[in-house]
């Protein structure tokens, strides 16, 4: 499941921010903001991608670097949200 999220996320990053240049893909734990991949508009796009693709809702309090500023962080965040959603269902 996590590998699936990671693959989709990386594809989104390559398509949306890197114009297909996979050599510029940041490391899994690297800051997407500091690497220059995301800016304030990019964060909004990322949130919309996560909400549409993984059927989760990103709450305001969850828009923190731990959840959204690295590939590993996003994968962890999506997994936790889905797990919480399954628990609530």
């Amino acid at each position, binding site marked *: 499941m996590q590998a699936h999220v990671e693959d989709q996320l990386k594809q989104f990053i390559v398509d949306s921010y890197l114009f297909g240049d996979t050599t510029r893909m940041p490391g899994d734990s690297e800051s997407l*903001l500091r690497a220059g991949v995301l800016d304030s508009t990019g964060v909004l796009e990322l949130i919309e991608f996560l909400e549409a693709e993984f059927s989760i809702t990103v709450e305001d309090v969850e*828009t923190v*670097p731990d959840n959204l500023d690295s590939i590993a962080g996003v994968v962890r965040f999506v997994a936790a949200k889905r797990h919480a959603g399954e628990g609530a269902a």
Partner: protein
Amino acid sequence: MTTTAETTTAGTSSALDIDCEAETQRIVVVLRRYLVDVRRKGYVVALSGGIDSSVTAALCVAAVGPGRVFGLHMPERASAPETLRLSREVSDTFGFDSEVEEIADTLEAVGCYRRYDEAVRRVVPDYGSGWRSKIVLPSVTEDDALRIFSIVVEDPDGVRSRHRLTTEAYLGVLAATNFKQRVRKMLEYHHADRLNYATTGTPNRLEYDQGFFVKLGDGAADVKPIAHLYKTQVYALAAYLGVPAEIRARPSTTDTYSLAQSQEEFYFSLPHHLMDLCLHARDHDVPVHELAASVGLDVPSVERVLRDIDQKRRTTTYLHQAPVLVEPIAAVDG
């Protein structure tokens, strides 16, 4: 190069002390030399009733005299009621000619207000006539949230609510409001062409460094006489040059949205005197704990402010860039 004295005082308010007389003379020399270089006869200054444009106008008058400075007052629907009175006070105080150019009709014609309302309706479907709004960012110092824009709306009954913007709504709001700065700049260049003058840009160092301007809007100018000065230093020059006291006491505002909006809500993470210290410290390698003590915040808050400074520099690099050519044209670009 950083001198020993700069290192000693960096991160403290004394680091921003300037010799106002010497600084004025330094700027005056540049303003005069530029006109000679480009064979123009004077300066156009857009007056907002704020501290930066007032100081810029005063410096131009100091450089070339009031007879070679032309002021423009350019209010629109969202301008604060006192804006025009204060900007006129500046042209009256320094004795230069000026003209009122109401830009609301032009903005209406290009669809600025309609496009803005349509963008807001993407997140607030009922938004329309009689409503007011502004966009805001979360506080950097209060928590670790990423700085994502929200819109605050007030309905005709005065009830306020806050909504996170979608990408499309955010970009739509920004693209619509940017008309305001670009229409103003278009008129500045019209009058500059008519008079054979040069245009001025009024960003202070905080605004210039952090990209708080609209590309080809208020970011466009022939000369930016105070772009090297921290806001604290601009206030010091304002007092020295005799800018009216009411303007010197007025809080910084964007004067762009229908709800009053401070620059701290929209862009900067701290009041300007503290932002100045943080920006100065960022460039002088001041230890975070020393800066925290100086600005009266805890270390994690200061670390977030410094991160925000770096992030804004990255995000707004594009605003500073000249058009990219595939290869330089040596005869033009040197």
